[in-house]
């Protein structure tokens, strides 16, 4: 087998050194009844060519986004990722390293982490960031739990614009801990509704901007209301690129910012792996979940980086840890860092502008189609549209025409009462032809 270096001679030599006659003797502790006699009923080993073919066949049963006119966002975004990003993250030294437990021989990973934490902090207008969470949805759940720890309160309020999957994820996690989740009804543009749900038991209010309907919201007045009640303001997001153009959550009063970083550096990958971003204020770092890299000095007084503040973490604190997270999103975080380094402020700003312009172009093109109403007024690169037929049917009909027109809100949240609403997204990858194709196809479908 091409991945197994021991030869039969090695094996018998080694058994000899160990002092046993057969490998079976090494499994002596396994109850005999549990030792499989034969092989598990699965196919035997195959060569690269055969395996490649198998996977290729499966892959070809899918329709890649890039082969369609593609307008789907809602938590995952199709952006162009420079070729150099994937080249770099595939370097053996990054790809096949573990979590940097031995910092002296992991300075590459650690310095990149430190750069990531700084980039994320700058981007979100926050003081500190951790070293990544699994994804945006779990970061959001962690934010809710952290707020409960910080405030010692047990209720978290979600705005009606939070991505339904995020809400569901947070609900699953929080309810196990006895944290009550109160969710405002789904609404295109009413984040401020959370203020009406606020009380003195509230640990945090979680608001998403741009929200799942694309609407961007000024968080400042909400944050003021939240802070007045002694609760934490948590800002959530799914599209990192937005912060190239809109005000940072930190500047608008957020105490914790959480969201999805996939947009930068990471392909769609059918939903994972992605990279959760998590930033907060310095005063809360001891309650922050997840790993964090910090600067220090070596024995010669030279700068170096290490994982630090590990007394928050499961491997040191065990049942008192701030989270059970261990492995996070290392390589996705590295991809983020590299792509963000390539962009820089100049590139990110321009990228964001382009996305916004494409979305305006899309909104205007769709608005002209009979049976379509654009619902989102203030947006970055996503808009909600109302169509004159059931949204899911429209999406399916569009797909048959080579247009992935977005997602029906009913798919994300069947109880939202928005069965005719579609979320669409435009990015720099959409051409004028794509937009024209969408409008034309939609016209036919709605006719």
């Amino acid at each position, binding site marked *: 087998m091409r*991945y197994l270096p*021991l030869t039969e001679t*090695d*094996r018998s030599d080694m058994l000899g050194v160990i*002092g046993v006659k057969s490998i079976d003797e090494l499994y002596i*502790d396994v109850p005999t*009844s549990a030792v499989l006699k034969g092989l598990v*009923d*699965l196919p*035997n*080993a195959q060569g690269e060519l055969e395996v490649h073919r198998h996977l*290729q066949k*499966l*892959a070809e*049963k899918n329709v890649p*986004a890039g082969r369609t006119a593609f307008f789907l966002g809602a*938590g995952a975004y199709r952006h162009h990722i*420079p070729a150099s990003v994937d080249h*770099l993250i595939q*370097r*053996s030294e990054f*790809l*096949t390293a*573990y*979590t940097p*437990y031995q910092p002296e021989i*992991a300075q*590459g*990973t650690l*310095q990149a982490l430190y750069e990531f934490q*700084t980039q994320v902090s700058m981007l979100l207008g926050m003081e500190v*960031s951790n070293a990544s969470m699994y994804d945006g*949805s779990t970061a959001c759940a962690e934010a809710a739990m952290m707020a409960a720890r910080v405030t010692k309160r047990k209720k978290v309020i979600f705005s009606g614009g939070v991505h339904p999957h*995020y809400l*569901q994820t947070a609900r*699953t996690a929080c309810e196990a801990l006895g944290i009550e989740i109160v969710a405002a009804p789904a609404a295109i543009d009413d984040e401020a509704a959370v203020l009406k749900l606020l009380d003195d038991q509230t640990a945090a209010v979680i608001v998403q901007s741009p929200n799942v309907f694309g609407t961007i919201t*000024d968080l400042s007045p909400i944050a003021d209301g939240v802070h007045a009640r002694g609760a934490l303001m948590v800002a959530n997001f799914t599209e990192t690129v937005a912060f190239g153009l*809109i*005000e*940072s959550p930190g500047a608008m009063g957020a105490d914790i910012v959480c969201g999805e970083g996939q947009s930068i550096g990471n392909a769609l990958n*059918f*939903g*994972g*792996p992605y990279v959760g971003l998590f930033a907060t204020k310095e005063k809360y*770092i001891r309650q922050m979940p997840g790993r964090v890299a910090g600067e*220090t000095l070596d024995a010669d007084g030279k700068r*170096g980086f290490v994982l630090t503040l590990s007394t928050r973490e499961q*491997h040191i604190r065990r049942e008192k840890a701030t989270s*059970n997270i*261990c*492995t996070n999103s290392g390589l996705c975080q590295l991809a983020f860092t590299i792509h963000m*380094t*390539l962009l820089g*402020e100049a*590139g990110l700003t321009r*990228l964001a502008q*382009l996305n916004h312009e494409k979305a305006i172009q899309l909104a205007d093109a769709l608005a002209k189609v009979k049976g379509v109403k654009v619902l989102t*007024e203030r947006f*970055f690169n996503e808009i909600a549209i109302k169509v004159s037929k059931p949204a899911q049917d429209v999406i399916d009909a569009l797909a048959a025409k080579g247009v992935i027109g977005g*997602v029906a809100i009913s798919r994300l949240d069947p109880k939202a009462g928005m069965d005719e609403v579609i979320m669409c997204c435009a990015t720099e990858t959409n051409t004028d032809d794509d937009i024209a194709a969408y409008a034309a196809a939609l016209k036919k479908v709605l006719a």
Partner: protein
Amino acid sequence: MNFQTVSGNKGLQQAEGLIFEVGHHEATGVDLPAPKGGKDRLGGLKRKSALDLPGLTEPETMRHYVRLSQKNYAIDLGLFPLGSCTMKHNPRLNERTARMEGFADLHPLQPISTVQGAIELMDQLSHWLLELTGMPAVALSPKAGAHGEFCGMLAIKAALAARGEDKIRTRVLVPSSAHGTNPATAVACGFTVDEVPGTADGRVDIAAMKAKLGPDVAAVMVTNPNTCGLFERDVKTIADLIHEAGGYFYCDGANYNAIVGRVRPGDLGVDAMHINLHKTFSTPHGGGGPGAGPTVLSAALAPYAPLPLITVDLTAKSGRSVYSLAEHPEEADDDLKPFGRMCAFHGQMGMFVRALTYMLSHGSDGLRQVAEDAVLNANYLLARLSGHYNAPFGQGPCMHEALFDDTNFKAEGVETIDFAKALLDEGYHPFTTYFPLVVHGAMLIEPTETEPKRELDRFAKVMISLAERAKSGDTAFFKAAPKLAPVRRLDETRAARQPKLRWRPEAATESV
């Protein structure tokens, strides 16, 4: 040879500052068409201040990260015997298949008709996992091992709730040797943790466990093979005991590599077990992730598996199977009561592709060989090193990892960390240090099956020579290590006491 260069480089070892020191906020490595510049629709929420994010052109970016990369150790450079982490070879075919356009360029919310191959792949992966583990159900969505634990324990909680016992059964038994994620997970699920001591031979103390059982016990969380690298001989008794007591058996499957293809957890009475695809099934660790932690469930827990659920319609008119996803409780079969959702979308697809590629490559026979070679390699090191290092739980056999400690060197004051740092100079990533906590000064060595004997022999030679050096009383040598790594020993206390978690203009130190 120890002279100071003008450049700061040392031969091929390149010095490199932070991007904030070498980059520039006007520089960019990405060319984009100029925006047209019409009126925005941001409703006045346009950013007012600068971000100050530095950029670098592509050549500078390449150089920056290539230079950084060379300051890392990696499997591709040598043995990475980090116990409990299963740092095996990451086949490059897996990287290629994961990047196929038909997988990588797929949005999780595309119409189901356009992602049939993706769901079929998830279904195939499930099939492999279920056949290998002998379990009836699997939740694919957990994003890492700890997330899988969370999934399994939430399923247990849901099952208890269905029995009306979730308010009563709140205590979870966790052996003292458990990985930190186990107690942390139990607590994250709202349980309390009750620690079960171990025996002198490194297993769960059955008598002690028995004594702790009671009507308030929800589950026991046992790692098997355990974190001492040993198979829990009494695993069936553990299962029987917890089941008799009305609780569930959570098995931490991080060490599944030792038994894959040879022993099925389903035959041991396990109710839930996560599988780290990034260990046993070789998806790359990537310097800290991403991973994937699919969690297999017994019949008792299967109904509570979280969303989404894969459904297959074999009866379609086309004659082909039609795949779909139940994404909401109402879309699931009537007998299923999903406890919720672990995360947005459907889990770590990129890892699923790699893991299935790995499984198909090895096949049933190859996977069994994986386990056997992993165990053989570990026992070989156990045998080679036993005369030199203390093996707290005896001469074995062990499973996939060999456990030693530093008691032999108490007199000389050479500790586990010192051996670890001395190994850095020898060009090795050290073993896992100070884990499991039940062994003072633990050194947990997991070579994995992808190491040739030649590399093990060289490692053994180095380890033995270090033991001799320690014994010779050359403690200073160890305390001064590492000397040949990219940096000298780093001050972790300083980092924790005066946390500097990001670069700031005013805090900028000299570029190194």
